[in-house]
C-alpha cells in the first residue's frame, strides 16, 4: 500500500489528472486497435498507447516519486527515453514487413 503521509493537493491533483489521461488514452488506443477495419489504420492505435498513454503515466510517476523521495528520480527518465526511441523503430519495422508481404 501507499505508505506516505498526507499528500498535498499541488502534488495529488496533477498526478491524478495524468493517471486518468494516461489510462484513458491507453484504452482508446486499444479500442482503435480492436475496431479499425484495415491494417494500415490499425497501426496508429499502439502508437497512441506508447507515446501518450505510457508517457502520461510516466509523467505522473516521475512527479509522485520525486515528491516522495524529495530528490529527482532518474529511472523513469531512462524508461521514457528508451520507449520514445524504440517505439517508432518497431512500428516502422512492422510496417515495412507488412508492405513487403503485400508486394510479394
Amino acid at each position, binding site marked *: 500500500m501507499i505508505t506516505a503521509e498526507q*499528500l498535498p493537493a499541488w502534488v495529488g491533483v496533477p498526478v491524478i489528472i495524468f493517471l486518468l489521461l494516461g489510462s484513458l488514452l491507453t484504452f482508446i488506443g486499444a479500442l482503435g486497435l480492436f475496431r479499425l477495419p484495415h491494417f494500415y489504420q490499425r497501426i496508429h492505435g499502439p502508437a497512441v498507447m506508447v507515446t501518450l498513454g505510457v508517457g502520461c503515466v*510516466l509523467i505522473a510517476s516521475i512527479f509522485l516519486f520525486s515528491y516522495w523521495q524529495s530528490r529527482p528520480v532518474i529511472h523513469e527518465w531512462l524508461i521514457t527515453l528508451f520507449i520514445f526511441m524504440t517505439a517508432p523503430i518497431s512500428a516502422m519495422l512492422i510496417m515495412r514487413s507488412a508492405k513487403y508481404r503485400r508486394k510479394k
Partner: protein
Amino acid sequence: MLIALEYTLAFALGMGALSMLLCGARLLIGPSTQDRILALDALWVCTLMLVLLVGIRLGNELYFELAMLIALLGFVSTMALAKFLMRGEIIE
C-alpha cells in the same frame, strides 16, 4: 487526496486490464500475421503500463527496473518477429 489517488489507481488498473483484453482479442482474431505481431507489441505496452501502475500503488521503486526490462524485451521480440516476417529467418 490519498483516497482519491487509490481510486484513480484502481480505475487505471481496470482500464489497463480492459485494453489488454482488447489487444488479446485482436491477437486471436487478427486476419493476417502482421496484425498479430502488432497486437503482441500493444500487449507489451499494456503490461509495461500495468507494472508502472503497480509500482506507484505499492510505492516501490524496484518495479521501474522491471518496467525497463519489459520495455527492452518487448522491443527485441517485436524486432525479431518483424524481421522473421520479412526475411523468413532471424539470424542469417
